[in-house]
């Protein structure tokens, strides 16, 4: 709520426009009543000729047009305000998402983040487009009307003054009474439509078990049951608006009776004043009632804004880069981990402290069970996350002193599930090497063993792939990622070795390619293959985030019992 209000008041010019339109709106409403009454009084009581009331009619026309125009201006300002708010919220979110360390984006919450970016940002709309303009009007217009009524007839003004607070009071009272119940019901509504979705998604299963017909009856039954439950809650809401209606009606009736009696019995009020008040009274109560519905619309926005704010305040830990150039002369730089520690905020999982050094052209295998921190270590080395303690050093300097671009230009990262961007195959391969010639791209594709496949496609290298394009199999994606590396020729390669599921051809290509690439670079692999591990110059053995062994296969098998166990279980398991 605070954020929304702050944002609204920071938009000074729009707020000024809204206040001015409200003031004019009040004036227009009073003017409208004045002219209506004046014309009627003129021809009815004063028996004026039609010509005599023409100026009044012209005035009235102007006021009516003004009122419609003000409605538009106020609505327009609200829409503009909402647009600015949505852009501002979304920009903040995007900034946040773009700066997140990789770890945050790997926590499998991408779906939720997209929903916040799309839906929650949209849901703040009604706060600005209807709540704020309505609230400003409600704060100003009834006061002006009240002043006009007081000016004409103090007693009617007093009745209004006394009865008016009942409306917000009852609104608040009913709101408090029904809030919990209606929120519960909203939750149920979401759950219910979720269940319908559940049934649709499970239709295959239902049909396989011959249960699809029966489910139809259940859908109907539960829909109707849900309807009855919802009606109970809606009834409360409708009764509350009935109460408000009664209050405003009784108040108007009271005013009408009072002025009628004064008009007839005491003759202490003129027809003009009486009629004028009678026209203004309903407008007065209408503005108060409208605030209620606007408030309701605003409440959804508050919930949405809270989601956005929560997301923005989450995990402020960011990776900051320096501006030092990373000059690669002849060989890849040495990489060093110096007591590096990385901790997840919530789960309590910690990686490290880890100290080790990775020599140029060497091959390092990271080994450990699922959840032992292998990927996190790879991200740490890649500079995709920063250690909370200790340092990652490259060529003797802290990694984050270098310019980001300088470092990533040296790096290729081949994951188990490489991401394909929407674009053509050629664009996807050349993503790391801007402006690469077509011949170079084709050569890289040949080396990655995917050129043959690409040639079978109708549009060849210009075939669109990714989100909006053709789907590729896991093996094909791996080979695209390899082609990227061949084109880029990095000095450091980070490789997350696939477990299973690849076809033999891709398996072979992966091995050959890695061998060829390793001739010109340092390779760090999260390893799953025994031969990769055996061929490594250095194995980093992880268990629950701790580095429990370091050395070659031969060294570890003799010195680390845990490693020995793993190897023998792996081989023994196969013998069974």
């Amino acid at each position, binding site marked *: 709520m605070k954020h929304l209000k702050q944002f609204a008041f920071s938009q000074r010019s729009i707020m000024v426009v809204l206040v001015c339109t409200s003031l004019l709106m009040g004036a227009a409403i009073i003017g409208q009543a004045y002219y209506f009454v004046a014309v009627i009084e003129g021809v009815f009581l004063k028996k004026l000729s039609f010509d005599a009331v023409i100026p009044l009619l012209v005035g009235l026309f102007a006021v*009516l047009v003004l009122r419609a125009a003000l409605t538009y201006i106020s609505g327009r300002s609200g*829409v503009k305000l*909402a647009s600015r708010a949505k852009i501002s919220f979304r920009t903040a979110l995007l900034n946040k*998402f773009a700066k*997140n360390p990789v770890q945050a984006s790997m926590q499998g919450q991408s779906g939720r983040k*997209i929903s916040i970016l799309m839906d929650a940002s949209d849901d703040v709309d009604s706060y600005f487009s209807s709540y704020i303009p309505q609230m400003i009007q409600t704060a100003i217009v009834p006061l002006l009307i009240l002043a006009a009524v007081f000016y004409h007839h103090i007693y009617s003004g007093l009745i209004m003054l006394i009865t008016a607070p009942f409306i917000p009071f009852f609104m608040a009272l009913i709101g408090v009474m029904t809030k919990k119940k209606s929120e519960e019901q909203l939750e149920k509504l979401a759950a219910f439509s979720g269940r319908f979705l559940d049934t649709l998604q499970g239709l295959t299963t239902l049909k396989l078990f011959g249960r699809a017909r029966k489910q139809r009856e259940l859908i109907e039954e539960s829909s109707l049951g849900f*309807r009855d439950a919802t009606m109970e809650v809606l009834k409360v809401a409708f009764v509350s608006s*009935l109460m408000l209606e009664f209050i405003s*009606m009784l108040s108007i009736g009271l005013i009408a009776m009072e002025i009628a009696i004064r008009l007839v019995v005491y003759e202490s009020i003129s027809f003009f004043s009486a009629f004028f008040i009678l026209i203004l009274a309903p407008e007065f109560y209408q503005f108060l009632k409208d605030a209620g519905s606007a408030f309701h619309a605003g409440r959804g926005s508050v919930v949405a804004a809270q989601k956005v704010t929560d997301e923005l305040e989450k995990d402020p830990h960011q990776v900051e880069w320096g501006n030092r150039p990373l000059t690669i002369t002849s060989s890849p730089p040495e990489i060093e981990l110096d007591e590096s520690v990385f901790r997840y905020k919530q789960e309590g999982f910690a990686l490290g402290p880890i100290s080790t050094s990775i020599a140029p052209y060497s091959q390092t295998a990271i080994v450990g069970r699922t959840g032992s921190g292998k990927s996190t270590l790879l991200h740490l080395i890649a500079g995709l996350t920063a250690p909370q303690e200790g340092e990652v050093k490259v060529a003797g300097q802290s990694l984050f002193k270098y310019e980001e671009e300088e470092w990533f230009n040296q790096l290729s990262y081949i994951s188990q599930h490489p991401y394909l961007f929407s674009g053509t195959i050629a664009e996807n391969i050349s993503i790391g090497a801007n402006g690469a010639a077509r011949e170079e791209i084709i050569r890289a594709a040949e080396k990655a063993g995917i050129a043959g496949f690409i040639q079978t496609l109708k549009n060849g290298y210009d075939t669109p792939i990714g989100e909006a394009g053709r789907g590729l199999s896991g093996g094909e994606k791996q080979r695209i990622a390899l082609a990227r590396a061949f084109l880029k020729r990095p000095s450091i390669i980070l490789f997350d070795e696939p477990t299973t599921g690849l076809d033999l051809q891709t398996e072979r290509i992966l091995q050959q390619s890695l061998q060829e690439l390793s001739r010109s670079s340092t390779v760090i692999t999260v390893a799953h293959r025994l031969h990769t591990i055996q061929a490594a110059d250095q194995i980093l053995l992880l268990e629950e985030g701790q580095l429990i062994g370091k050395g070659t296969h031969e060294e570890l098998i003799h010195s680390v019992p845990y490693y020995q166990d793993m190897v023998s279980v792996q081989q023994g398991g196969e013998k069974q």
Partner: protein
Amino acid sequence: MKDLATVVKLVVLERKDIFLSVFFGYLAGIAAVGLFASSGYLISRAALIPPLYALTVLIAILKLFGFTRAISRYAERYFSHRATFSILSHLRVSFYKKLEPLAPQIFQKYRSGDLLSRIVGDVESLQNFFLRVYYPPIVLVVVFLSTIVFTTFYSAALAVVLLAGLLLTGFVVPVLFAVRQKRINTQVREQRGILSTEAAELLYGYRDLKIYQKVREKEDQLLLASNDYVYEQEKEGLHSTLSHSMNTMVSLIVSWFVLGVGAWLVAEGDLNGIFLAMLVMISLTVFENATPMAVFPVHLEDSRHASKRLFSVVREDIGKEPDSPVKLPIDQAPSVLFSGVNFTFPGESKAAISDVSLHVAQGKKTAIVGASGSGKSTLLQLLLKIHPYVNGEIALGGVNLEDVEQEDLWARSNVVLQENHFFYGSIRDNLAIAAEGEADEVLVDALHKVKLSHFSLEDEVLERGENLSGGEKQRLALARAMLKGERLWLLDEPTSSVDALTEQALYEELFDQAEEDTLILVSHRLAGLERMDQIIVMDHGEVVEAGTYGELMRHQGYFYEMKQIEKSVFL
């Protein structure tokens, strides 16, 4: 529009509530007119100083109108919402009825679950159809006509002005805005689609974007997409504000005409001045009923779009069922025969299955292995008649699959697919779909067999089995298949998320129970296949090898090499 007609048919099922909504809507509208008319009359009478009793009567009438209006409004809301929820229920059932025969083929076409959630959203959004599109115009017209008839008693000219006002606010202005609304809506949806695709790229491709230093570029693109989207939304917002303001202006100007014409008539002596205030008040009030017409175009367009999308999905053409189906024999393990089977996914040029022939004898066990994407699951799906339009012949127990009804085929087989659905409810509910009316002991025994003894039948299962691990889901699906007790087993990677040790135990149970049955197992793991009568090796949609485990290992071909790689996989 045709789709909207389907919705209308479902709407009119709720005749009684529709009638009550319209009736009370009318009563509320007309009472409001009456209330303000009588107050206008009251004040004019009072100005002429009538006897006090006349005033008392008028004030009583005023109160009566007031109460009628408030209570009718309440009743209108109540009945219209009740009708809306009943209609939603009809919509769900009707849509389900239409979707049901199309499953599961339709899910093959729309692979993302996104489509389904959009459908559910569309159904929900159609709640506005009755509430904002269907009945408000009826109420509007009836209230106006009554008012106009009442007005003719005083002045025909004023009645004509009101009629013109009705046409303008009720039809001309909404129709004018509805046309533009349609175009703007399309643009908003397009921009939203672009933004959400870009956002998905940023989040799912974040690591790769970061390494290739494209994050900044993507962020800029996203900001641009977001601005475009907001700009289109703004256009929509301004458009609807304009539509609302125009409606207000027209109704105010009509009242101005009423006043002007009325004043002229009074001045000319054609109308008693005492009625002028009343007539003006009527005009100002009756147009309150036209306010909902301002949002009419928006909701009409929404409803039209939602119904179109909803029913276009179920109008899909899917393979047709045999004219004279052959019933599969009950309690008899069938043989399975594929001869020269080819299959290509619609819209793709490369065949997913090419020229596959294989035979599984009655009561034999066959495994299909291969890399992901090699076509092994597709083969199983063809046998389940999940994909229509197959080239070549598939036969089950000597009966051509084309002559078998889907429903009959599924009733005779125990199936575990890669994606198995679990419903909100208990473990018991989820098992019972395979074994209705079975005693608890049978269900508990099935849980025990799949090593899920730690579950009780009362344990809660959330939607899509969200609270179960991948392995638990697979074991529960296997338990379901075991409970079904048919003689043909079709299993697609039933244990891929289960650890090797448990997998072996599950296979034991499975082979025990299926000893006399025909069984086809798709597996990406090669361990534990020694007991199969036959192993079929697939690569790129073709059968590259077939034989027993021993034969394939001796042959040292594709299977042997896969086995070597699997052996070398460490953790």
